[in-house]
């Protein structure tokens, strides 16, 4: 394909439906910026390695106009304390120009425990919002139009249950399931690898995931059913190449599980999404995103034989790297976040979370969250890097790094295939071992100053200036327990017991569990009760150390 054909066949129809932000883009000197700058001659190597935006192998982006059409979704991950307080933070962020929501749940919710479970001691409302019941979810999403604002939820082992809550709240708001837009993380493999909020053993966990794929393809078609995440793998200490490799290897395992469950690749693959980290090494990070896109397209097309070009596209969310934030001289984190966010934008992300400067210490204050959002807005509206597509393409170093990261990732994926796939590689501790080794080597490099972190091992100050930090009310744990007690007193407990029985029975067959989850929640069964019902049937995952 030449550029003219691309413009006529792919760009023009897109612009007709979604006009670009401006009719012309130019620099301060009046130099026009083309939508896409390319080599003068489009040869076979260019076609094969880069192609055009929105075209296989998608190295230059998944859409034909990218940010000339609309900016990435600015989606700040937030949630703390109770549903009411988090709802207020969401409304604040939306009023400040944020364009999508991203819900952070507390650890009990993420691991399927009610607030009054003994395992929840001290954790309620701490790292996110506590949502053990449908009523809590209704308060969390109160006044947020679910047909207009997309909701992303960082929830994994109990993702299906939390999605069922959103569907039920949508019904109450008069929004049908097919109108709902959003994402559940639903990526259990990286929980075993790096993040730790697993509940059940791998086999039933994979079944819950394919239940969601199947249900959503029919009922909630605009929902991203999984966000296959390299973010936490990177935070745990992996390299950029390992981040791509282990994420895509997990992606392969999910696709294979869905195929084994009898699902049609060109039906479920469009609803897969990804989540990457934006780390410090700017050029390598830009290359990483491009390499990931190209490699996934090849995997879907060549390995799995997907036919629909939409199935080949790697769409991803990005978050700046939490582990790079320093507790020392925390104002410097604003700069780190800006550099990382620029890498994500240069790499063609679909949505972005920028961290608060204070997040090495606590959850972000409202002020820190606002600066983080403003950072994205400055990049979007002032830097000009969003005015032409894939601006670093053709840079000798960026193309070289893109090729090298792809090659290294392919080698890892080959190793994992040889071991029998991602699940086996995780069960044998291979993936965790590789990450741990990289983390330890990095720590050693810090110790002997081979790596410099400004304000930590160089350019330190004698006296740190204290900054405000977010403080949470410790009384909310008791208050959540009271709410649960009241709920259990007023609901129809015989009905709840009956529905829990039905879930237990269905869990032993291959019946899709989603409709039962919705019914149970609508009858005030709690998240913890549903998850305990499944624990009783399936048992719990115990990692080998």
């Amino acid at each position: 394909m030449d550029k003219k054909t691309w413009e006529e066949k792919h760009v023009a129809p897109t612009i007709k439906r979604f006009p670009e932000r401006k009719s012309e883009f130019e620099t301060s000197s009046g130099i026009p910026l083309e939508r896409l700058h390319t080599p003068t001659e489009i040869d076979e190597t260019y076609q094969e390695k880069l192609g055009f935006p929105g075209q296989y192998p998608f190295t230059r982006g998944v859409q034909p106009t990218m940010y000339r059409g609309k900016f990435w979704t600015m989606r700040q991950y937030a949630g703390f304390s109770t549903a009411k307080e988090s709802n207020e933070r969401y409304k604040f962020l939306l009023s400040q120009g944020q364009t999508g929501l991203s819900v952070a749940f507390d650890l009990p919710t993420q691991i399927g425990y009610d607030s009054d479970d003994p395992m929840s001691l001290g954790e309620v409302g701490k790292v996110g919002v506590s949502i053990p019941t449908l009523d809590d979810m209704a308060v969390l999403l109160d006044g947020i139009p679910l047909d207009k604002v997309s909701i992303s939820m960082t929830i994994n082992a109990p993702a299906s249950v939390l999605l069922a809550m959103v569907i039920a709240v949508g019904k109450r708001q008069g929004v049908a399931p097919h109108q709902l837009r959003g994402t559940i993380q639903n990526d259990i493999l990286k929980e075993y690898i790096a993040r730790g909020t697993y509940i059940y053993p791998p086999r039933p966990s994979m079944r819950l995931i394919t239940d969601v794929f199947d249900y959503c393809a029919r009922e909630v078609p605009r929902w991203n059913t999984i966000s296959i995440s390299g973010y936490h793998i990177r935070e745990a200490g992996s390299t950029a190449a390992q981040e791509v490799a282990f994420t895509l290897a997990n992606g392969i395992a999910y696709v294979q599980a869905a195929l084994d469950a009898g699902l049609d690749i060109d039906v479920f693959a469009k609803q897969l999404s990804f989540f990457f980290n934006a780390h410090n090494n700017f050029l390598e990070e830009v290359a990483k995103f491009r390499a990931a896109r190209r490699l996934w397209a090849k995997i879907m097309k060549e390995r799995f034989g997907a036919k629909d070009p939409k199935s080949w596209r790697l769409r991803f969310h990005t978050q700046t790297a939490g582990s790079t934030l320093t507790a020392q001289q925390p104002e410097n984190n604003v700069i780190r976040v800006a550099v990382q966010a620029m890498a994500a934008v240069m790499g063609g992300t679909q949505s972005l979370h920028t961290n608060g400067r204070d997040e090495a210490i606590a959850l972000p204050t409202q002020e820190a969250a606002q600066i983080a959002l403003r950072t994205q807005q400055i990049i979007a509206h002032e830097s000009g890097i969003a005015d032409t597509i894939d601006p670093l393409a053709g840079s000798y170093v960026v193309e070289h790094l893109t090729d090298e990261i792809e090659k290294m990732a392919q080698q890892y994926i080959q190793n994992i295939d040889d071991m029998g796939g991602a699940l086996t590689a995780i069960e044998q501790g291979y993936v965790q071992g590789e990450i741990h080794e990289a983390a330890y080597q990095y720590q050693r490099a810090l110790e002997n100053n081979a790596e410099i972190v400004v304000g930590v091992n160089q350019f330190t100050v004698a006296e740190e200036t204290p900054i405000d930090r977010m403080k949470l009310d410790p009384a909310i744990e008791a208050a959540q327990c009271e709410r649960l007690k009241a709920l259990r007193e007023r609901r129809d407990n015989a009905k709840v017991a009956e529905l829990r029985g039905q879930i237990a029975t269905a869990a032993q067959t291959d019946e899709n569990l989603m409709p039962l989850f919705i019914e149970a929640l609508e009858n005030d069964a709690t998240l913890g009760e549903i998850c305990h019902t499944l624990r009783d049937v399936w048992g719990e995952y115990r990692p080998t150390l």
Partner: protein
Amino acid sequence: MKTPRILIAKPGLDGHDRGAKVIARALRDAGMEVIYTGLRQTPEMIVNAALQEDVDAIGLSILSGAHPVILPRIMTLLQENEMEDVPVFLGGIVPDDDIPGMLDLGVAAVFGPGTKLETITDFILDCVQKAQDPAAS
């Protein structure tokens, strides 16, 4: 001095174990024996492990903010088991203004983000040496 035995534990529901694992390895490289509990340990499980393994020090890693609830429970259980002489050190995300409260509970040291591995290993070796040979201090 006999080889120090150290328990590294992750209390509560927090899954961030990069720090705990790096510390465990650094302590091993410094010649200590390390028992790592893995995730989701209740205070009872941790104190029980410390007792069974007869450890010389206990390292706890918490990044979720649950330390104000979890630490008092662990320190009480240690007292009940007459293990108050086993030094407890804490790492992870512990805001500055929470540190005095932790030390008041009897925590020997709090190591925040950016602490050098050497600082931690030296501290532990020193504690253990003093406990094994009180005359040397």
